[in-house]
């Protein structure tokens, strides 16, 4: 029998705000333990939460970006469970009236096809603290406790680990482009749990679902799901039952382990938080959020193709990374040759960045300098070959191409007198090539050209050199 997987994802995203969800403590990552805390986020007796408006507005913005219905009336609930990383032993979350309901994220499949993955809801809650484990004890750092956290719950619309991978990638792209979150998984800004079940192809009902936790990277999600689908399929094939449970992914071991079974499922005892008033999302709030909407990746791709005359492929690569697209656009918008800018970015820049293991944000070359470089090449001040040399220097030093060209005396030689000198020298040194050319081997001229370039240290204007050579060889 053939089986298929049914996958749903719960993605937790830390929102990019300066202060925490319910108090004024900083959200900055990497602070010394328990220095970004106060009575409120430590759950001291008598404290009360006050909601961060930026977190609410970013969640509304997310809803608009994924086509959600943004609720008119939304409220906050307490979700009770005891855990040392939860200061109040209840989490302020949203139960039955989330800020955003429904919506979809489009993913790209092989062969250029797309698929819409439904989003059930997106709601706002508070993050928990971070625990460090020692031999017999654990230590808790509450710096992270209370950071605004948005949970985006998908429909069980994915059928393969690849689709799940594509979903997270696409969601991440939307959230980063919207300024909602930096989605840095290493910093825990994006975390993901999954529900996965397996059923015979053709069967309508879902199989027994298993929740998987602790998938810390996007590729980890793919590996965990692949493992789990294989495990469940094998069980079904052997006639065994898959039991409803929560499992933990161990990336090093490459397998999942049981965390808790159904009997130990939580009883969260949700009820409306009496300390927090509901949010009634007005037309004005939606209009304000709409104003801050970024261009969606697909719209940006279309615009790049049209506005900058880029091939689809280039536009696709550039838009896939919001920061890269922004960089490109800064350079391209001031350039007469945006296609050339794209070429530089796609080949030289991305190559160098990956070699140096740097992100575009860490790139020393200012976008304006790239514009200048393209202008220098196009204007014939330097050759394309010198251009690459200048580029390498720009990448290392961050200097402007004009300055580098000046400092190193790299201006292209277009002076006919000087060029004739180089040409004469090359002809004199390479009688064989001259003879070959005259015997009808046109290609031999390239060797001579190369000699001229070498003599000029690459600065000779290649086009002029060609013309002079032709004239001299044919004439003489």
């Amino acid at each position: 029998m053939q089986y298929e997987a049914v996958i749903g994802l719960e993605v937790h995203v830390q929102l990019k705000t300066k202060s925490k969800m319910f108090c004024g403590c900083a959200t900055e990552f990497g602070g010394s333990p328990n220095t970004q805390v106060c009575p409120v986020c430590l759950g001291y007796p008598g404290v009360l939460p006050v909601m961060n408006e930026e977190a609410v507005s970013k969640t509304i913005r997310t809803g608009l970006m994924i086509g959600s219905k943004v609720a008119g009336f939304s409220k906050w609930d307490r979700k009770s469970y005891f855990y040392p990383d939860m200061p109040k032993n209840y989490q302020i979350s949203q139960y039955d009236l989330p800020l955003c309901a429904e919506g979809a994220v489009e993913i790209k499949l092989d062969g250029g096809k797309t698929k819409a993955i439904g989003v059930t809801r997106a709601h706002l809650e508070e993050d928990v603290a971070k625990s460090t484990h020692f031999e017999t004890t654990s230590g808790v750092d509450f710096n992270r406790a209370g950071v605004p956290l948005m949970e985006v719950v998908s429909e069980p619309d994915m059928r393969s680990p690849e689709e799940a991978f594509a979903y997270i990638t696409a969601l991440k792209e939307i959230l980063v482009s919207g300024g909602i979150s930096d989605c840095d998984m290493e910093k825990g800004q994006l975390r993901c749990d999954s529900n996965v079940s397996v059923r015979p192809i053709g069967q309508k009902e879902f199989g027994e679902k298993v929740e998987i936790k602790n998938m810390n990277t996007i590729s980890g999600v793919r590996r965990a799901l692949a493992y789990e689908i294989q495990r469940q399929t094998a069980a079904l094939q052997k006639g065994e039952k898959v039991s409803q449970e929560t499992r933990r992914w161990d990336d090093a071991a490459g397998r999942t382990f049981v965390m808790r079974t159904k009997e130990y499922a939580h009883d969260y005892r949700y009820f409306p938080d009496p300390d927090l008033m509901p949010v009634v999302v007005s037309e004005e709030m939606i209009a304000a959020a709409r104003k801050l909407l970024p261009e969606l990746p697909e719209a940006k791709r279309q615009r790049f193709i049209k506005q900058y005359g880029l091939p689809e492929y280039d536009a696709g690569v550039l838009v896939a990374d919001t920061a890269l697209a922004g960089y490109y656009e800064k350079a391209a918008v001031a350039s007469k040759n945006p296609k050339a800018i794209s070429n530089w970015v796609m080949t030289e820049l991305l190559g160098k960045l990956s070699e140096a293991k740097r992100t575009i944000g860490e790139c020393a070359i200012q976008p304006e300098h790239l514009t200048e470089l393209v202008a220098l090449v196009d204007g014939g001040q330097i050759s394309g070959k010198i251009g690459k040399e200048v580029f390498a220097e720009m990448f290392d030093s961050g200097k402007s191409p004009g300055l580098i060209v000046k400092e190193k005396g790299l201006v292209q030689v277009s002076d006919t007198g000087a060029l004739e000198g180089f040409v004469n020298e090359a002809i004199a040194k390479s009688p064989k090539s001259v003879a070959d050319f005259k015997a009808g081997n046109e290609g031999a001229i390239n060797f001579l050209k190369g000699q001229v370039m070498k003599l000029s240290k690459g600065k000779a204007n290649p086009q002029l050199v060609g013309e002079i050579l032709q004239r001299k060889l044919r004439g003489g």
Partner: protein
Amino acid sequence: MSLHTLTIHQLREKLRRGNVSAREATQSLLDRIQSVDGKLKAYLWLDAEDALAQADAIDRSGIAKNGKLLGGVPVAIKDVINVEGQPCTCASKILKGHTSVYDAFVVQRLREAGAILLGRTNMDEFAMGSSTENSSWGITHNPWDLERIPGGSSGGSAAAVAADEAFAALGSDTGGSIRQPASLCGCVGFKPTYGRVSRYGLVAFASSLDQVGPFTKDVADGALMLRVLAGHDPHDTTSVPQPVPDYTAGLGKGVKGLRIGLPKEYFIDGMDREVEAAVRAAIKKLQDLGAEIVEISLPHTDYAVAVYYLIATAEASANLARFDGVRYGARVTGEDVIDMYGKTRGAGFGPEVKRRIILGTYALSAGYHDAYYVRAQKVRTLIRQDFEKAFERCDVIVTPTSPEVAFRIGEKTDDPLKMYLCDIFTISVNLAGICGVSLPCGFTNDPRLPIGLQVLGKPFGEETVLGVAHAYEQATEWHKARPNL
């Protein structure tokens, strides 16, 4: 005349004139406490040196002589409200040794008004109770009869004020915890409209019902204290941004033409006959003063106790979850985290708190949530609507505060339900979120125990309530009676 017997407005007059200093006022209270608190046990904690140092600072700065409302006036604080640097145990073993790291909003207000933060008063553990017998640190005795309870949960604050051990004290009222002990001890206890006074820094029992309020020796002092405590606090999102009237200036207008509602459901069989007689006499008095009496109905009164015990315990079960021995308070070690939680909480909480946590947890648990908790919330709506309709026909509502006077220590400890029913006249007020005051309106004959009159007002109708209470008080002598200690 000893200073400790004065009201705030009398003391302030002397302070303003420079006849007495804040130190003298404080010392006089300390002496009084020294002489009577051994019998009453109203205070849990007191640092005489610190109190005198605060008084000296106020004397030096001249605050006592300027116009500050409470300049140089010592105030006692229920052990459920945070004062930075002072202990805050909520009369619970689970917070034994805990020191507050911040000031409650109301405490900031008291400091700004020039008050001296005198000490911590006893209470039922986490404000759960009606007799102060649920304190982990011992029983507080009623100043009128040491064999009897002072009421609760703010029994320490009520007893301290009634026994001249404090000029005023803060309490908290979730289902009557200010008004009922005020009634049983014979002082004035005011429960403001929900949202009138910030809850920031008040350790939560039931967040949608809790409200901080003052105990005072008379209504004028209640108005003064309320003026200091009331006002918007951005740290409490349930705090209502509504201007605070000058409650003191609003006194003295009388009750002529005011409509006073008498809810027929509050004059019930089984009420103490002397209590009923005293309240009827008080109503007659108000009528003589020019008020119009109208009969009203609050038809869902009979359900209030049930609604209250479901909602309050449900909220409390979550509010008290934070006491787990991880970040502060006491810890009992265990084999693992779950065991540590269970043992810490099992050893830290007293029987009534445990009972309520269990009830509240149960009322919210899967399968029972809608039958208990949601149903209670819906009946709460009906109770709120009862008051809305009633207030279309009257300006204030007058009732007994409690169906009976102070009972004997230990009399009801084994029957929680009987204890819960002490609060039948006070609980609806919290469910509806309205304001109310209890003030003395007489005594039983033998033994001589105080009886309280409750005056209830519309949301943010504090001025009217104070006006009626003041008019009655000025026409009677009850508030001047003092226990013989």
